[in-house]
């Protein structure tokens, strides 16, 4: 099983309540991650404002921050390698990385993943 790590930009609270608007991306990705975790995927999330050490101690993440700055976040690592930057993954991407079967797990949701569908 691959391990997926998501490095969030620094948010006062991960709900985005403190932001200019509640970020629908954050809402959606939270639901997708919950789905993938329930299906057995190994996913960890790190918030820059709360766990900066996790960013500093990972050479890949640290190099990314030096190159692209915090504006480049979020950053997704799969087995330690960069898989996605600048946006959050959708359900299909999570499923591919974690080798989950979207079709058999939730047949009725196969055509449209998550809340953004249809």
């Amino acid at each position, binding site marked *: 099983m691959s391990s997926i790590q998501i490095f*969030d*930009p*620094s*948010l*006062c*609270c*991960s*709900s*985005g*309540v*403190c*932001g*200019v*608007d*509640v*970020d*629908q991306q954050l*809402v959606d990705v*939270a*639901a997708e991650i919950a789905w993938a975790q329930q299906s057995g995927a190994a996913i960890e*999330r*790190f*918030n*820059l*404002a*709360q*766990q*900066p*050490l996790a*960013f*500093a*101690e990972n050479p890949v993440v*640290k190099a990314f*921050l*030096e190159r692209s*700055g*915090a*504006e480049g976040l979020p950053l997704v690592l799969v087995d330690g390698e960069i898989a996605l930057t600048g946006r959050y993954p959708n359900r299909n991407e999570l499923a591919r990385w974690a080798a989950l079967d979207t079709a058999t797990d939730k047949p009725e949701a196969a055509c449209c993943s998550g809340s953004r569908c249809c």
Partner: protein
Amino acid sequence: MNFLQQAPRFLFFTGKGGVGKTSVACASAVHLADSGSKVLLVSTDPASNVGQVFGLDIGNRIAAVPAVSGLSALEIDPQAAAQAYRDRIVGPVKGLLPDNVVKGIEEQLSGACTTEIAAFDQFTGLLTDAELVAGYDHIVFDTAPTGHTIRLLQLPGAWSGFLEAGKGDASCLGPLAGLDKQRAQYKAAVDALADSTRTRLILVARAQQSTLREVARTHRELAEIGLRNQYLLINAILPAEQVADDPLAMAIHQREQTALANMPDVLAALPRDTVMLRPFNMVGLAALRHLLTGDGAGLAPAAQPCRPDAHPGLAELVEEIAQAGHGLIMLMGKGGVGKTTLAAAIAVDLARRGLPVHLTTSDPAAHLQETLAGALEQLTVSRIDPAEATERYRQQVLATKGARLDAQGRALLEEDLRSPCTEEIAVFQAFSRIIREAGRQFVVMDTAPTGHTLLLLDATGAYHREVARQMQPGIHYLTPMMQLQDSRQTKVLIATVAETTPVLEAANLQQDLRRAGIEPWAWIINNSISAAHATSPLLRQRASNELVEIAAVAKRHAPRYAVVPLLQDEPVGIARLQQLVGSDH
């Protein structure tokens, strides 16, 4: 004094800056110690003069006060507590992550909530650690935690995530993962607060309508979470015998009596004490002993002020503002310093010069709109109801984000949405629509977000900005923060009154704005007695106390400033607002 009868173990004094909490708390502690009790006085006042009062250096450790038998004191600096907390989180990554990333993290941890909860963190030991405070009959605090802080700590959901498991969670407490005590200890502290046999809360207020309204809110909020043992203390009332031949003193006296007669019912029902305005400076032990009891006879009255220096008035500021022809004018400062009135006075004066002005206010009383709307050709007035804007924002968030949360998660989100930041953000969103008009005319606002909020908003906006840039190359994208940073477009005026704590609070606000790259344009010292013509000794005493604060603003804090006199009549309506400006056209 009722509030000192059968005093319980813990006494908390609460009230906004400048009402005299620290003086009253000190006087109470001395009184209790003089009656034979062992007393610990805890000050969290950023302008703490407790050490000065007792003539010793106290600091962040318990120190015996030699001059008063049975009294010890401790000073907690909430800013330092918050800084220590930030250092704990950020320290390990300094030099490892790029500097601007580290700066961003620090900003996340620089809000008022962080300071507040860090200070509460320091309290908990005093409320729960029997050993630390074993010898004391009474512990007197010159401040109290807010309802928001206590409610957060009471919510089981707040503990399920970050604080216990060390995982991020959707909460204002999230950034406070570094709180270093156990859940049981916070719970014990909150329980002690809510136990009326152990804790008494004294609401300190001045006899002013707006202050009393605010105190009523604090009362309800804290009563709801169990702090029901509450007393009301009205400080610094002008005694009737002082008013005879001073029209200004007479007007103040009447205003105070009206405010007291019309105070909110929930306050009127509380046990109440009043403390008269004293003819002496509240410095030194003798003065403190006379604050609550006795008349201070034998204490030397403070020196009568010599003729105060001539200070610039509002007219000079408006003159300079008018030259630009358009722009955004924002009044900033703590509640109760008269931002709305000052904003209205500036707007009216600009409009009378024939310049188009949009005055927009969050004044809950809405009387501005009624008295000014349609009164001047060039003046439009609009109002944003902060409660309404906040509620709309709250509902929108709950309907989107809250939809998928379980009961605990939803309770936590609801509490997050009751944080002071939420109201600030909601109101600012409403205002930012009007800000755009400032390119064509004057827009005068009586409220503004803090630098902290602006920095957070801007950080969140960074992503959208990036998207906009990529989609339409070359398009000019202006965030509200960029507009506020541009001194050609925006003038920030800091409003305060000439008293120690309010001036210090205003200086902190200026610091906060500078962090966001915003340089305040001027300061306005409102309700100045020294700029008025008082003859009664009590008022002249207050006037003389003002001088040192005005000098501090003029010399240390403000690039330019104005002093606005306290008027006999409430500055309502065009004519009196004009009087406030002091211009003669």
